[in-house]
């Protein structure tokens, strides 16, 4: 446990005979390597080899030892030859493997991974899972994986410890034991179970996947020949994209990181002007609509709720931009999101828990009932209960005629919304799978 974390530690935590939280950090760092969720905000150095060496320098390795060790640590994670590359230019998956190489360089004995795939696309996740499986086979390092995603955990783990909402342990066992003995308890606490198991033992809420939608109601959004390139950024991210949404329709934007899913969502919602092509939202160019008009028609849910808060309190956040009639309905919106104003109204949005922030970020979609709702990775980091709640929310919006455009890596969400998949392959135009 790094000293920079505040809070109180009860009891005792012994790591290889050394007391975490009490003994000097270097002693703990020699025994434990940690990899965090967000690959970008844990990288310190500009170049890959310096990044791997950073921890070794802190632990006092000699220059000769480091010169020998760094290339080996990189090769172990499939990054041979990456030494002089700039860390900022790597893909998310490569950055995450670099973070692991940096943590493992000092041969710590224990590797702690904190939701290492939360920000990765499916390809990055597969690569990482393959590396972890290879490390498990060698059994040179104890791996502690903190993770929501059951399909990643179950095949890799020898032992699983499930924690309840209050942080207390609720079950401990091998993967097989966990399913045999504790499945009901785990499901009841919102712990994800592997897909292969779901349905077999009466999963509590397997929401019946909808039939994939077709353009249903009246045309709402027309995207024609849209391409986008950053000014001075050279190659377009995508070109010549055509996309139609009707009222109450739903489309999932799929593709690797960097393929422009979020960018296309921002173009569709009038936040960004396309470089080429045109966008029509019920006949208007959304990028030219005055902000008040745009807000009435489009809702946008950001991946990181903290990037979308505009006010100092939960109440002001919910009232922002609404007219008098809208403000009168805020108490009801708050209650239905599980954030009653009596308890939450005067709190700062930034002090809410992750799940509460996610629910607060849905308030505009509920208060304004826009005709188009654009979602950017809305379910990431959610436990089973949080996920089910979100799906219920989105389905209710679909039921009342709102169209949904969602950028996501989560195939379960695509199925649960009955969304048409729209692949952005990272080079050219999007392709609608039939």
């Amino acid at each position: 446990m790094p000293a920079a974390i505040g809070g109180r530690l009860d009891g005792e935590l012994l790591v290889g005979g050394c007391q975490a939280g009490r003994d000097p950090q270097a002693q703990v760092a020699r025994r434990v390597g940690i990899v965090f969720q967000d690959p970008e905000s844990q990288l310190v150095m500009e170049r890959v080899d310096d990044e791997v060496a950073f921890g070794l320098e802190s632990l006092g390795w000699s220059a000769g030892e480091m010169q020998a060790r760094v290339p080996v640590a990189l090769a172990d994670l499939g990054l041979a030859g990456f030494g002089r590359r700039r860390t900022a230019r790597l893909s998310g998956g490569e950055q995450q493997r670099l973070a692991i190489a940096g943590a493992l360089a000092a041969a710590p004995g224990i590797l702690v991974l904190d939701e290492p795939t939360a920000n990765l696309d499916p390809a990055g996740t597969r690569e990482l899972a393959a590396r972890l499986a290879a490390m498990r086979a060698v059994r040179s390092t104890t791996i502690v994986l903190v993770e929501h995603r059951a399909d990643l955990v179950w095949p890799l783990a020898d032992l699983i410890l499930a924690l309840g909402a209050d942080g207390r342990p609720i079950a401990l066992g091998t993967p097989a034991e966990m399913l045999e003995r504790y499945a009901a308890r785990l499901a009841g606490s919102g712990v994800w179970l592997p897909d292969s198991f779901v349905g077999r033992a009466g999963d509590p809420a397997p929401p019946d996947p909808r039939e994939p939608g077709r353009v249903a109601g009246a045309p709402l959004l027309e995207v024609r020949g849209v391409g986008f390139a950053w000014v001075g950024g050279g190659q377009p991210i995508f070109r010549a994209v055509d996309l139609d949404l009707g009222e109450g329709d739903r489309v999932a934007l799929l593709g690797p990181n960097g393929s422009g899913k979020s960018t296309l969502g921002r173009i569709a919602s009038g936040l960004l002007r396309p470089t080429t092509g045109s966008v029509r939202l019920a006949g208007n160019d959304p990028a030219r609509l005055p902000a008040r008009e745009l807000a009435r028609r489009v809702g946008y849910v950001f991946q990181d709720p903290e990037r979308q808060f505009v006010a100092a309190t939960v109440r002001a956040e919910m009232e922002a931009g609404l007219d008098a009639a809208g403000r009168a309905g805020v108490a009801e919106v708050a209650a239905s999101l599980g954030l009653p104003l009596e308890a939450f109204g005067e709190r700062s949005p930034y002090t809410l828990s992750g799940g509460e922030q996610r629910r607060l970020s849905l308030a505009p979609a509920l208060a304004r009932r826009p005709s188009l709702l654009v979602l950017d990775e809305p379910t990431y980091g959610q436990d089973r209960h949080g996920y089910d709640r979100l799906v219920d929310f989105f389905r209710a919006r679909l039921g009342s005629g709102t169209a949904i455009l969602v950028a996501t890596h989560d195939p379960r969400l695509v199925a649960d919304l009955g969304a048409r998949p729209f692949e952005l392959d990272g080079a050219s135009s999007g392709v609608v799978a039939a």
Partner: protein
Amino acid sequence: MIAVRAADDRALASPLGRTSPVAKLVLVGAWVAGLALTTDPRPPLVLGAVGLAGAVVLGRVRPASLVAGLAPLVFAALTVGFFNALLNPANANPAFAAVTSLGPIRLTAPAISAGVALSCRVGAVAALGIAFGLTTDTTRLVDALVQQAHMPERFAYGALAAFQAIPRLAEDLVALREARRIRGLRASWHPRILVGLLVLAIRRADRLAVAMDARGFGSGQRTRFRSVEWSLADGVLLGVGLAVLVAAMALGRGA
């Protein structure tokens, strides 16, 4: 998207790229101090030209990237000089004849030469900054500041990590402004945007500090993966550079 102009590998492998960043920093500092002490346009022209020539010849910087980096700054320097000349109190002094005038606006010779000198100085400082930036690797600069200038490690490596986060700060700003527009609020500017930026920056800094601590940063004697040693080239660079400074200043003094 903000493009941070960085030195390319060719420039970093050049003679100027391999000298100690601290030596270059000291020299640039001395030249800038010298420029601050003169009002003559010739020293800045000489020092700016020598700096750019050094970047191209000794630093193997592509002239195109030099021009691309310098163009907006030269424009800024000319603008600053022009307004300085326009607003110079000498224009109101009837003792000086007007070189040119437009209605009540007069431009006198002393005002023009003051404006030209200022433009030259601002332009020269910009040229030196670009020449330094395009021949210096950020990591090596920080390594050199720690090893040769004995800057505290926590500050230096913290600043390096913060520097890497600048592009993400720009992305945060875009997102916060978009969030306001999609809520029907005035997007252009509002104090809440600053609060949001601050919160996001602090969260990120927290995560980075924890990640650095977890790797044992600052918990003991640090060793060096890349050592930066003083070399003969650093001495030559400093010696020749200071001689050029003295010569350029003498040129100004002699006028």
